[in-house]
């Protein structure tokens, strides 16, 4: 398919379908994440990208036969691999009999929160989650390193603002509806953030939803206005603090004589310690995820405005 817009929409639909798939398989936490990230924010970011690159793929004459060959082999191998897999939901499958029983039976006593998924990813395997947060942080820094444009001069900033004003004057209805919606989106993000212990949710999803609210604001009221509320330095600081917050929980448990990320030693009562640890690390996750998403959006969109501005000035120069 040559139409990139259609490709992005299809990938968004694919994300939504896989999310429903996960719901059908009772993996609601994964489904929530997939819906927020796969169907939501990544589609949005890719749309921002095609506003810069153009909607059509460049026609090429080369036919990727060898790629097709590799894909067929890989696919064939994957299907071959499924032949000996235990059936879906089979009670005697190894995954249900080795590590899972402890998670299911004992996590309530050991960690004290009803959502087993959260106890696995925030306590039993907290270090993996920490790694994921660092992956997201790295992605944000990578985007900054490649895309951030050197600080523009004041007058150019004003010019951008004026372009925005004329552009956004038309969308009066949408702006008012968005104004009403944004507080609720933010509130919902906070609910997801704190409700992760009891139902599907947690820092990752909450961060993405929170970022979505800010991005919506930026799209309707102009990038410059949004940047006035949240500037680049501030958002970088939040991203860094998110990682540090998470890591510091581990360091504090080191100081208190436990192993890294041993929440039991955070408080005199192990269960209270677990609660406290999970609460703080979820905050760290939320901070980093939300700010990195905003960083990525701001830099892509800022780049786009920068480009169109350059084109415009070129245009006026040539007409003179």
């Amino acid at each position: 398919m040559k139409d990139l817009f259609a490709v992005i929409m299809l990938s968004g639909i694919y994300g939504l379908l896989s999310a429903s798939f996960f719901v059908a398989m009772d993996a609601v936490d994964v489904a929530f994440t997939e819906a927020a990230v796969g169907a939501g924010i990544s589609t949005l970011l890719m749309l921002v990208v095609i506003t810069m690159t153009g909607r059509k793929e460049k026609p090429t004459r080369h036919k990727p036969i060898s790629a097709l060959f590799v894909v067929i082999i890989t696919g064939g191998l994957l299907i071959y691999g499924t032949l000996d897999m235990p059936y879906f939901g089979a009670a005697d499958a190894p995954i249900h009999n080795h590590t899972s029983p402890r998670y299911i039976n004992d996590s309530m006593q050991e960690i004290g929160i009803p959502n087993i998924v959260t106890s696995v990813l925030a306590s039993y395997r907290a270090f993996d989650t920490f790694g994921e947060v660092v992956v997201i942080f790295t992605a944000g820094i990578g985007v900054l390193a490649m895309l951030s444009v050197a600080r523009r001069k004041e007058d150019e900033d004003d010019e951008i603002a004026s372009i925005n004003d004329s552009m956004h004057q038309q969308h009066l209805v949408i702006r008012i509806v968005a104004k009403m919606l944004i507080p609720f989106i933010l509130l919902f993000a906070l609910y997801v953030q704190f409700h992760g212990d009891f139902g599907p949710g947690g820092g990752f999803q909450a961060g993405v939803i929170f970022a979505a609210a800010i991005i919506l604001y930026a799209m309707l009221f102009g990038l410059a206005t949004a940047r006035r509320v949240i500037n680049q330095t501030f958002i970088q600081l939040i991203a860094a603090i998110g990682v540090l917050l998470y890591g510091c929980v581990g360091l504090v448990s080191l100081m208190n004589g436990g192993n890294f990320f041993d929440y039991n030693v955070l408080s005199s009562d192990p269960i209270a310690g677990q609660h406290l640890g999970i609460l703080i690390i979820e905050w760290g996750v939320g901070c980093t995820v939300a700010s990195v998403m905003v960083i990525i959006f701001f830099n892509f969109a800022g780049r786009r405005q920068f480009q169109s501005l350059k084109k415009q000035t070129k245009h006026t120069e040539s007409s003179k």
Partner: protein
Amino acid sequence: MTAHLPILQVIIPLMAAPICLILKRAKLVWLFSLIVSVLAFSVSVLLLQQVMTSGVISYELGGWQAPWGIEYRIDKLNAFVLLIITSISTLVLIAAQASIEKEIPKDKHTLFYVLFLLSLTGMLGIVATGDAFNVFVFLEISSLSAYALIALGKNRRALWASYQYLIMGTIGATFILIGIGLMYQMTGTLNMQDLSQRLPEVAATRTVFVAFAFVTVGLCLKLALFPLHLWLPNAYAFAPSIVTAFFAATATKVAIYLLIRFTFSVFGLSFSFTTIPLQTVFMALGLIGIFVASSTAIYQNNIKHVFAYSSISQIGYMIIGFSLSSVTGLTSTLLHLFNHALMKSAIFLALAAIMFRVGNVQLDNFRGLGRQMPLTMAAIVVGGLSLIGVPLTVGFVSKWYLLTALLEQGWWPIAALVLLASILAVVYVWRIVEVAYFKEPLPDRAPVKEAPLIFLVPIWILVIANVYFGIDTRFSVQVAESAAQSLFGVSL
């Protein structure tokens, strides 16, 4: 605090990265990263000492017991690799400040150090962990930061090179993830130690076979084994010089470490080498890789390209040693991990110095450099001799062990070919020497001065190490040999 050394190894550079972002001032950040790297280096020295005297260290993250929680497991093999990574990163960082001044725009210096530390974290995390999924998480950290670091290169082709690497690297990482997922499905565990005990029960299934195939191919992509090496030359050539020096010495080594870890410790020797003809495949690919890459290196005019291709051929030597599946063969691979890191970082740091003075590393610009930058050129010559495998350098030691291992199993035709391949290395090193020492400088190039001390110190530390470990092989051989023996001890 010594009980927490395994986690400190990874967590020190990890926490330092966001702190760098807050510190902001480029010079301060440089100093801070350097201190962090020195700390990481000292931790790795302590770890190696501890492992050599008292055996495997296991560290339970979060205080959860192994298959339920994540375990850090340091044995001789990964302590050795940790030492290689942290020592190279420290030496490279010394020169980083001056080098990036000329190659990276000013407003990105802080981000450069943040990414550098993240990439260091990623590699250390991959090596230190004893959990298969944790490997993947840190693999992502190290790869993402690597793509961004390479894209920072001055030449616009760096972006394209980075993009190619991104696509290939992502495919590799996905393959590894698929493999890990399949293993989890068949065993219900992600812990490597636990996997190695539970895999034999289900070893006959097709699923495990496919898991092994995916992990191996994914890792071969990451370690740039011929014919999956196409991303490497441009990535190394167009990345900022300091990044090249760091990655050439460490990035592919980490992938080779993982290959050894998965084939020997997780799947087990007998499974790995009997289910598919791994030995024949790897030996053939290794040999072809050596010849193709060395002969391509001869025709390159960008010197970074020359040594990037040379890296691919050196990977071939390591893979041949690995494919023998004998203690001596594995020793030679491990030795070469260490030795190759020493030579390549010396050479690429010297190239960074030339980049700093001359502005590019095209062969023509090397004319007369032998007189104008004698110390830097001498370092390249010593590094080159080491690549060829001349006695009294580290290159000789690892080739010697590789040949012994080959002859031990009666592979004398292969041994002859390996020796023959060294002649190709002579050719591409000689081309540089000839231009640098025997040709008059280009008339239109202004004469250049010797590189500043901040380059020469780390370069010559590495050069001296190249010679020292070529003569006094007690440390490197002892560690490599006992690491290899312990790997075979586990599986036999």
